[in-house]
C-alpha cells in the first residue's frame, strides 16, 4: 500500500496538519510520499520523498495549478491513496484531483474499519463505512481524528516539481481575522451559547451564568452567523480554540467544527434537551433540561 500525503502551506508557513496525515499513514502501515506547494525554507519533519512545488511560482492557493502538479506526482508514484486534511485547502483541492484522476473521493474520514474508511453522517449523529470502486482513491481526514505522529527530527529528500498549468482565478492575499475584543483562550471558565438558546434575548441568560462563574461567555457558529453574539466570541474551527478549566455548553449540539475548538477543556458540562446530541460525547456531565428553566435556576443558587 502506498499513500501520497498533501501537506499545506499558508502565509509563508508550513501548516502542522501534515503530522496527522503522517499519523494516519503510519496507522495503516503505508509506504509514504508527500507533496507540498511551499518553500524549501520550511520543510516538514518527514524522512521520505517530498515533491516540492515552489509556492513563489505556483502560489499558496491555486487549485487548478496544484491539481495539475499533483497529477504528475500521482503518475510518477502510482499511490493507492491520496490523502488531504479535511481543511479549507484540502476539501477544495481533493475533489478537483479526484475528478482529474477519475477516481472516488471519500470525505472527512474519522476511522478505518477492515481497511475501509468510516465517515460521519448527519452532523456526526451516525457513521457509515464506505467502499470505493477501483484500486485508487482520494480521501480527506477529519482534523483530530488520527493522532499526529510524534516529532522525529527528520529531513525529507526533496524532489522539485514543475509543470505548465494555467489558473482560472486570481488569489490576491489574505484578510486577517478580526482582532480585539475577547481573548477566550485565557478564560478559566467559558459558558457558550448554541442554536438551542432559541432567541437572541437568551444570550443574557448565558452571559449571566458566565459572570456568576467568573468567566467569559462564548458562542457556536450559528449564534454568531445570526448576529446574536459578535464573531470574536466564537469557539470552533473558524473562531477561537479554547482550553478552560470549565466549559459549559448551553444548547450546543456539538458539530465537529465546534468540538475541535473546545475539546481540550478540562471539564465539560453540556446543557441540552437532546440526550443524543453529539456534544454528549465530550461532556463530563450532560444535563438534560430546557436551558431557559435550568440556567436561571442555576444562577439563582450560585
Amino acid at each position, binding site marked *: 500500500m502506498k499513500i501520497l500525503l498533501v501537506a499545506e502551506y499558508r502565509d509563508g508557513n508550513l501548516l502542522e496538519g501534515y503530522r496527522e496525515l503522517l499519523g494516519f499513514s503510519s496507522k495503516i502501515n503505508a509506504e509514504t510520499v508527500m507533496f507540498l506547494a511551499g518553500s524549501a525554507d520550511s520543510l516538514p519533519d518527514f524522512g521520505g520523498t517530498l515533491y516540492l512545488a515552489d509556492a513563489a511560482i505556483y502560489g499558496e492557493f491555486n487549485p487548478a495549478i496544484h491539481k495539475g502538479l499533483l497529477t504528475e506526482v500521482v503518475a510518477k508514484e502510482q499511490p493507492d491513496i491520496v490523502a488531504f486534511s479535511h481543511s*479549507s485547502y484540502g476539501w477544495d483541492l481533493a475533489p478537483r484531483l479526484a475528478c482529474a484522476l477519475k477516481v472516488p473521493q471519500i470525505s472527512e474520514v474519522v476511522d478505518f474499519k477492515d481497511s475501509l474508511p468510516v465517515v460521519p*453522517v*448527519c452532523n*456526526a449523529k451516525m457513521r457509515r463505512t464506505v467502499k*470505493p470502486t477501483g484500486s485508487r482513491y482520494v480521501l480527506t481526514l477529519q482534523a483530530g481524528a488520527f493522532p499526529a505522529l510524534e516529532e522525529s527530527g527528520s529531513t525529507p529528500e526533496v524532489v522539485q516539481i514543475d509543470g505548465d498549468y494555467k489558473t482560472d482565478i486570481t488569489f490576491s492575499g489574505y*484578510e486577517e*481575522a478580526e482582532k480585539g475584543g475577547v481573548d477566550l483562550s485565557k478564560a478559566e471558565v467559558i459558558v457558550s451559547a448554541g442554536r438551542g438558546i432559541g432567541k437572541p434575548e437568551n444570550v443574557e441568560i448565558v452571559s449571566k451564568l458566565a459572570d456568576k462563574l467568573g468567566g467569559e461567555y462564548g458562542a457556536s457558529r450559528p449564534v454568531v452567523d445570526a448576529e446574536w453574539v459578535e464573531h470574536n466570541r466564537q469557539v470552533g474551527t*473558524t473562531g477561537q480554540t479554547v482550553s478552560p478549566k470549565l466549559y459549559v455548553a448551553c444548547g450546543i449540539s456539538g458539530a465537529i467544527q465546534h468540538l475541535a475548538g473546545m475539546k481540550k477543556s478540562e471539564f465539560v458540562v453540556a446543557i441540552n434537551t437532546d440526550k443524543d446530541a453529539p456534544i454528549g460525547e465530550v461532556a463530563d456531565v450532560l444535563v438534560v433540561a430546557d436551558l431557559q428553566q435550568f440556567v436561571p435556576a442555576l444562577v439563582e443558587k450560585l
Partner: protein
Amino acid sequence: MKILVCIKQVPDMESKFTIDGTWYNTSDLAWRMNEYDEYSVEQAVQVKEQVGDSDLTVLCIGPDRVKETMKKALAMGCDRGVHIVDDKAAQRDPWEIASMIAKFAGDKEFDLIFCGMQSQDRASAQVGIYVAEMLCIPSVSTIVDFQYDDANVTVKRELEGGVKALISTGTPALFTCQLGLNTPRYPTLPNIMKAKKKELLSLQADDFLEVTAAQETTEMFFPEKKGGGLVLEGDPAELADRLIQIIKEKTTVMG
C-alpha cells in the same frame, strides 16, 4: 444573465434517526432545505436583484417531496424550478449527483452557478466542485462574501481561524456557499402565493444519469458512546444543586 442554484432537501438534523439497512430510515422525518443552500439561494436572488435582466433557475434532485423545498426557493425569489425526479437520490454518491447536474447545465450557458459548500447529511463538500470541473469553469468554494460587478466576481473564501482568502474570477463560474455568507430571507406570504404560479418542470433522472457510482456505503451505524459522562435528568432546581456539587468536586473554579 442566467443563474443556476442547486439545492438539496435534507432531514432536520434534530430528528430522531433510525437505521434501515445501509442508510437511515427516511420515513417519519421532517425535511427541509439544506442549510448551506439557503445561503446560495439568497445570494443568487441578490445577484438577480442587482443585475435586473436575469433568469434564475433552482434545481433539485430527489423524490416527489423535494417540491416542497423547491417552493421555498421559488418564494425566496427564484424564477423557475427544475425537479429531476429521482427516488434513489439520497443514496447516490457525489459523483452521480454532480454528473446529473452537469448534464443538465451543460448546454444552458449559465453565467453563475451557486451550490451549498456541503450538505448537512453527507457533508462530502464534493458536488459543487465536481460540477465546475465537469463543465470546465472556475469554481471557488466556501465563500463568505460575494461581490458581482459587470461579469467580474470578487469573493472572500473562509479559511481556518477566521482568516479569509481574497479571490476574483470572471464568468461563467461556480461558487459554493458557507454559512454566514448573507442573511437568507424569509419568504413573505405574497411571495409564497406567487411562487405557486411559477414554472416547476419535472424531468426524469434516467435522462441525466450517465455514470455509475464511484463508491458505496457498506454499513451505517451509531457511534459508540464513549461513556464516563454523567447524564442528569429531573427537576431544574435539584439538577442545579447536583451540578454545583459536581463542579465544586471536579474543578477548582469555585474554590
